[in-house]
């Protein structure tokens, strides 16, 4: 019962109580009962302070998208849902990271780039209406054959006292 309430509260807060630090193996109880894992880590999960890396999207929303993606009659295991929930947060952090954006800009240059589109950065400029009328880099997100042209505007990459900050604006237009 305690395990259940922890799960419910965790889902609403977007925190899963059984989140584990990265390790080589994730142990599964011999009875293959997901509930036992929850109880094992319950104390740690609840008493631990709220950590930034534990922010997740609600599992109900994630599960619904998964359900609609797989064939009609398909089912999804509970630990698969929880896993994708964690993957989602990882994904968002990844595409927001400076490392990714750097690679993205590099990839869009030269032959890999899209004809007629150049990649650039504007340094220290304010976001103005002009920023939107003059698109710079572009990329493509594809999923299940759907193509969407992604225009990425990078603005105000600033160096402030040894810390790097940048804000990213992204616009999308349906592929042509």
């Amino acid at each position, binding site marked *: 019962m305690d395990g259940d309430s922890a799960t419910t509260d965790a889902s609403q807060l977007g925190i899963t109580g059984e989140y584990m630090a990265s390790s080589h193996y994730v142990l599964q109880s011999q009875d293959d009962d997901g509930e036992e894992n929850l109880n094992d880590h319950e104390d740690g999960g609840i008493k631990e302070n709220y950590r930034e890396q534990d922010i997740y999207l609600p599992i109900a929303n*994630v599960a619904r998208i998964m359900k609609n993606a797989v064939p009609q009659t398909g089912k999804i295991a509970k630990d698969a849902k929880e896993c994708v929930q964690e993957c989602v947060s990882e994904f968002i952090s990844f595409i927001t990271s400076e490392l990714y954006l750097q690679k993205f800009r590099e990839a869009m240059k030269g032959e890999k780039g899209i004809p007629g589109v150049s990649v650039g950065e504007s340094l220290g400029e304010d976001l103005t209406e002009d920023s939107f009328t003059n698109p710079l880099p572009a990329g493509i997100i594809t999923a299940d054959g759907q193509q969407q042209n992604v225009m990425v505007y990078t603005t105000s990459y600033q160096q402030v006292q040894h810390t790097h900050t940048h804000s990213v604006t992204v616009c999308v237009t349906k592929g042509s």
Partner: protein
Amino acid sequence: NANKIKRTPDAKKSISLPVSRVRLIMKSSPDVSSINQDALFLTTKATELFVQHLALSSFNNGSGKDSNTLEYSDLAKTTEENETFHFLTDILPKKILARDYLKTLEQMQEEEEEADL
């Protein structure tokens, strides 16, 4: 030739993820200071596509096609085999049963003891 997202009511309805929560996750990155509204919208939409892509790829690639169920192992397998999902490697380790792990541990200890003799 639109350069901006047309934020019509239809566009907003097409998202099924909470934008505020996505924003929270984005803000947790030290690289990010401010987030443009369109960037937020797109990230949310991209996340949705990502979930679909990961779920369907794993379902088709793994045992799901036969058992009709998407399992954790399908996700781990797809992550390993698909370069697109390599960034998930650390959080999607392959699972083993506790008893198998303990057995392996015992075997390792036995081998060490034999080596010492």
